[in-house]
């Protein structure tokens, strides 16, 4: 699937260095997706709301990381769904509610969601949230906008270019040319659809190091799933062969 989509795979390039923490992206996201406001409280940080929520598909994280020459240094990072190529949520979802669009966005079908929350456990980034009705919600890369040739609402509104949308390959090569050595998400999980151009170590920005789908989920997907079908089919075939080749038990022959 990766190869079929790689040509027109779209992505968001996040350049935290350019982010001024205005949170227009949060507002635009709410506006486009018609999400209600969230009652929040002061957690001792300007980061608000404090984390992703069913009504907050993206947030700006206000990482306070003092450096030697800047004792009040803020590192703003847009947190959102990473739109993994190898998406754990999609893999584990038992009802097909999570799916991938042609552009590579991992979107969700609310009507198909059965509220099992398995996607939450399989997501390496702790992204999916559940709304009051027990249905999954998360950033869907504005699949409805990008499918019509527009850019996602957050990118459209970003005043500084900290969020850029476009062909994934182009965004990556442009970031390379601009001198960003560390591109977070270029390779992880088959390549993320949210790529981050960092000047410093990703963990300074609070990013997950070496993100991966839980190994038990991969084991299940790679071995157990096929084994259930192969096992069932194999036994039925073996039974048919046994019946034809050896035949049923005959009580009269037992005395031989």
């Amino acid at each position, binding site marked *: 699937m990766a190869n079929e989509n790689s040509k027109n795979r779209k992505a968001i390039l996040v350049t935290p260095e350019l982010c001024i923490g205005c949170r227009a992206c949060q507002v635009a996201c709410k506006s486009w997706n018609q999400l209600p406001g969230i009652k929040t409280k002061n957690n001792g940080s300007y980061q608000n709301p404090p984390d992703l929520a069913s009504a907050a598909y993206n947030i700006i994280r206000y990482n306070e990381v003092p450096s030697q020459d800047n004792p009040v240094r803020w590192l703003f990072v847009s947190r959102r769904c990473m739109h993994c190529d190898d998406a754990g949520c999609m893999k584990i979802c038992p*009802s097909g509610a999570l799916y991938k669009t042609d552009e590579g966005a991992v979107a969700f079908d609310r009507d198909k969601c059965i509220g099992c929350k398995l996607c939450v*456990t399989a997501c390496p980034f702790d992204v999916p949230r559940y709304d009051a009705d027990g249905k999954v919600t998360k950033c869907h890369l504005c699949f409805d906008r990008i499918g019509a040739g527009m850019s996602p609402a957050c990118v459209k509104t970003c005043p500084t270019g900290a969020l850029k949308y476009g062909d994934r390959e182009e965004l990556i090569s442009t970031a390379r040319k601009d001198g960003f050595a560390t591109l977070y998400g270029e390779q992880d999980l088959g390549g993320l659809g949210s790529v981050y151009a960092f000047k410093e170590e990703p963990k300074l920005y609070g990013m997950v190091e070496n993100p991966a789908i839980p190994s038990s989920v991969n084991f299940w997907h790679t071995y157990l799933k096929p084994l259930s079908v192969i096992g069932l089919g194999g*036994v039925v075939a073996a039974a048919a062969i046994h019946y034809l080749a*050896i035949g049923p038990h005959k009580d009269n022959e037992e005395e031989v």
Partner: protein
Amino acid sequence: MAEMVRKESGGAILNHWMLAISCILLIVTGFAFLFHLDGVGAVFGGYETMKTVHNWVGVVFGVSLVFTMFQYLGDSLKYDADDAQWFKVAGGYLSHKVKVPPMGKHNPGQKLYYLGIVIFGIAIALSGLGIWLMKDNATIMLLSHLVHNVSFVFFCIMVPVHIYLSTLANPGTLQIMTTGMVPLELAKKRYPKWMKAIGKM
């Protein structure tokens, strides 16, 4: 009319079919979840209802499983030299020429199958409850998901074996789970040690 002996009580038969029907329903809906079989989902009016059905049929399965333990667990834990010999001749299933040792009420294949059903049945029921009710505990969810699916593979492989052996492979066996009766002459051939134990032989 040939003399008959009762091998299964009415309660055991009823419980067997409760376990069997719930088990097959769970396997079918389980496959539908595993491979997104929309057609199966549609039978239930969608995945959401199918999940509810799967969960509650799972409860029926679990309760029924507990009932079986009063029925078969004791016998399934006892093995003797004839049982060991039974394995050596593969129960007579690979050749009609071999001499199968005399058996009691259940042969060791049935006893082990039953133990497998109990062990993986408990595992699949408890892990099912984990997925159903402990959604907000990631560790329990992941562990339950793994255990549930490992057990599922066991059921996918062993249940059809059980169905084949109790129908086509051994003609006359199915009636044990319908009427509960076996003709005495047949019982003497198949379960001589049991027949001796109850003084019919």
